[in-house]
């Protein structure tokens, strides 16, 4: 990430680089299914959306698949059919999800079957946040340090996102972290995104506990699509079968902070 930041900085600063929109004749590939399934701990309604890929030069209209047979099950023997509710989205109801349980989602589309299994990590309680005032490139702003105690006995994967309440523009975007260097530590790290909150902002702060296969997908999505990647490739999906997208079962916590 630093690499990209530094390189783009260098190029834009010293060397007077320039960009131009060009016409390229791109190859097209066969249409693939794109599945995004989500099970949230504590919820009893869960979703899967199924769409397909489209050629690069077409407008961004992604057709939904409505004739799939979808089931959701857990490792306690519970199972439910997920029904199509429009635009390629399938829904399971009355299926309460818990931390530590393992969920399997299966979709049959024509003669193809896609399946994925994920265990919801145990929640790491988000206790609050501390604010650090900082300046970047002449801009003063505030960094948010979420307060939590990383458990030493597990490898944890986190996702964070914070945004200004009722604002569409001020959004950090998705921030990934694991505890590779901070296992068992009380968090001190500000996770910095594309939004530097100002004094007086009301900020919604979200923290997800995600599974390793989900982290791998999101991480590879970031790495492989970066302009600096030597060999761009599709993110590492946790679906069996040749599908794009991912299935996540996770816990989610959310707090609201007013920046002093």
């Amino acid at each position, binding site marked *: 990430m*630093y690499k990209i*930041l*530094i*390189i783009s*900085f*260098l*190029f834009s600063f*010293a*060397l007077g*680089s*320039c*960009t*131009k929109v060009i*016409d*390229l004749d*791109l*190859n*097209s*590939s066969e249409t*693939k299914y*794109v599945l*995004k399934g989500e099970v949230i701990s504590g919820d009893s309604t869960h979703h899967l959306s199924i769409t*397909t*890929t*489209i*050629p*690069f*030069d077409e*407008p*961004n209209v*992604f057709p939904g698949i409505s004739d799939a047979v979808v089931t959701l099950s857990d490792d306690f023997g519970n199972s439910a059919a997920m029904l199509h509710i429009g635009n390629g989205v399938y829904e399971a109801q009355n299926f309460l999800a818990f931390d530590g349980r393992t969920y399997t989602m299966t979709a049959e589309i024509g003669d193809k079957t896609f399946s994925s299994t994920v265990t919801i990590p145990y929640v790491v309680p988000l206790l609050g946040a501390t604010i*650090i005032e*900082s*300046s*970047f*490139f*002449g*801009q003063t702003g505030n960094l948010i340090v979420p307060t939590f105690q990383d458990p030493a006995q597990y490898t944890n994967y986190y996702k964070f996102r914070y945004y200004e309440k009722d604002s569409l523009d001020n959004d950090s975007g*998705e921030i990934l972290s694991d505890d*590779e*260097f*901070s*296992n068992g530590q009380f*968090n*001190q*790290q500000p996770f910095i995104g594309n939004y530097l909150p100002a004094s007086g902002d009301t900020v919604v702060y979200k923290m997800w506990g995600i599974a390793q296969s989900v982290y791998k997908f999101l991480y590879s*999505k970031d*790495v*492989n*699509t970066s*302009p600096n990647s*030597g*060999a*761009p*490739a*599709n*993110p*590492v999906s946790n679906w069996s079968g040749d599908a*794009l*997208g991912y299935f996540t079962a996770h816990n989610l916590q959310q707090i609201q902070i007013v920046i002093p």
Partner: protein
Amino acid sequence: MTKTLTILILLFSAFNNGFGQSKYTLSGTIKDSTTGESLIGVSIRPSELSGVGAISNEYGFYSLTLPEGKYTFVVAYPTYVRYVRTVDLRQNISLNVNLSSQIQEIGTVEVSTRKKDENVRQAQMGVEKIDMNEINKIPVIFGEKDIVKTLQLLPGVKSAGDGNSGFYVRGGAADQNLILLDEAPVYNASHLLGFFSTFNSDVIKTATLYKGTQPAQYGGRLASVLDIKMNEGNSKRFGAQGGIGLIASRLTLEGPIKKDKGSFLIAGRRTYADLFLLLTPEERGLRKTKLFFYDLNTKLNYRFGQKDQVFISGYFGRDVLGLDAFGLSWGNATGTVRWNHIINSRLFSNTSMIVSNYQYAIKINGDGFDLSIGSRLQDYNFKQEFQFFPNARNKITFGLNAIHHGVVPGEVIGSEGSGVNNSKLSSRLGLENAVFVSNEWSVNEKFNVLYGLRGTGFTVLGNGEVNYTFDTQGQITDSTAYAKNKVIKNYINVEPRIFLSYIYSKTASIKGGYSRNVQNLHLISNSISTSPTDIWLPTTVNVKPEIADQFTVGWFKNFRENAYEFSSEIYYKSMQNQIDYRNGANTQANELIEGELLYGIGRAYGVELLLKKKIGKLTGWLGYTLSRTEKKIDQINNNEWYLARQDRLHDISVVGIYDINKSFTLSATFVYSTGNAVTFPTGKYTLDDEVIFVYSNRNADRMPAYHRMDVALTYNIKKRKRWESSWNFSIYNLYGQRNPYTISFRESETDPTKTEAVQTTLFRMVPTVTYNFKF
């Protein structure tokens, strides 16, 4: 080991006597008469005998054994005054020669021009010697003269990118080049993310590139060896030279420690782009930004008596990049101590002790949150080489080399209260040993052979920590802790090399050769070109030594009294144990990095054509390469062959240098090459309200072709007393071609329902002025 060496020396001495009473040796050292610098590659030939002669070695030493008799020896070197001396060879004679360069005495005596036909005669193939005079005249970006950028203009050598000092040789990757500075390997030979090489041209004496065809005394990389020798420093008088450029300045000081006995040289270079940042408006916040590099080269040498000389040379370079709270610094440090000893008139010894270090660190300084992530590599290297000159037709080089590699692939250090566990990835230790013997044999006037054998062993050593073994899916199959320096595994390889030349007419020859090379240090990189944060890994239990076999044939022909040189070479190279990484691999500070790697094979083949004009007012060359480079890696591209990123079918370079008169020199270069093989999207989809691109076959697309013309004008101001100076004006990318550095894809700014391709161009016309001086 010492015993073995003594026996070997005795053996060769016996060999020496066995030739009978009637042969004697002429030997000595060849130097520049004004600076006292030893001269490399000078030919010494008796005019009475054709097809025999000696060439001075990398320390200026030569040895020539001939039957008793009276000979007229001609000592010739380009741009130097020819030295002729008649010697009555009735005993072993020591003859040190001081050659004077043409600058002082032009017009009065005959000057040796490069009428040499060495390129036709010698068996060595795939070799390029860089003329340091050309480097001063060829236009380069930002006016920073650079040997690597001049190399990139030769057939078979390709630039890693616009303005980049990384290079690919005959389809090899950037890490498959061994770059030696006074015998010390330099691991990341570039500055400012690749735009400048680490070599300060002012202090370089010679640079030779072997395109995978290196003699047996060199080894360790698949694609090439770039052997760079630094100047020794003027042993006659004190001098200085330097340059003031657009982005950097240079200064070199040199002089005698004791006249004709020893000398020193110290050179520095620093960029000052960051100083301009102080002029930017406060609110842009760029004033705290750091962006510079510097280099320091030093060298000392001292001659003890007639037979011994000691050299100490060192290099230290650092890049510093700081963006507010983020900082990145990296650099190389090398040190070499060498001892030359002339054992007898036919046996020359050089002993080297070398240390190489490369490291980088990313620093984050927040308020109360300091973090440093880094990696380090350190080599201890011992090399003993003998050169034995049994007679006028053979030159035997033999010796041994032992290197201890230590790599810390990742290290994280946090400040007190940063909430970070300080951790160090387990270091990778290895011992790389080699023995080599090589003979340059001039069979007769028409037939020359260069052959040799290099045996290499790599020992994977324990580090006192856990070693992991991975299966093909990257899952851990074994984790065993080994004691520090316990031998875990040995890899033994034999590398034969043979090159033959047959001179079928006075000016033409055909050549053929085969060489095998083995590489035990591997760069793990997932970016477009090399980056300072890429990690070097030695061979381990999981990572096998890379092996390349290269076959070469060529036709060499000189025209018009050797004024024009033409060469054509065809090569085929097959490579084993090539390394790539899994999709989405985490290469930064990853303890299990070897589980992210994939292995396969590669092949590269091509034709290289080069026509050079070496004398006259207009000099230069025309180079063309037609080549293909492919890889086949398990689990990538459905296990099918695919093009390597650096595969460029056509590559053309034209270099012209025109000496208008004594004061002005005009030069121009033009390059054209097929675009890199890249992977473009083949479709798109939506996920989490984002548009994401679909990728299919690896490197199935092409960047647009690259072409560019550069020009330079050098104005040499008339020399006053000892003060020489010149102005250099250059324009990089004269006609402002928008060569794409990257092509990326994004949502259209005008219509968000559409996606578009955007190309980024780095350099559109860069004019530069540089002032150089010398006294």
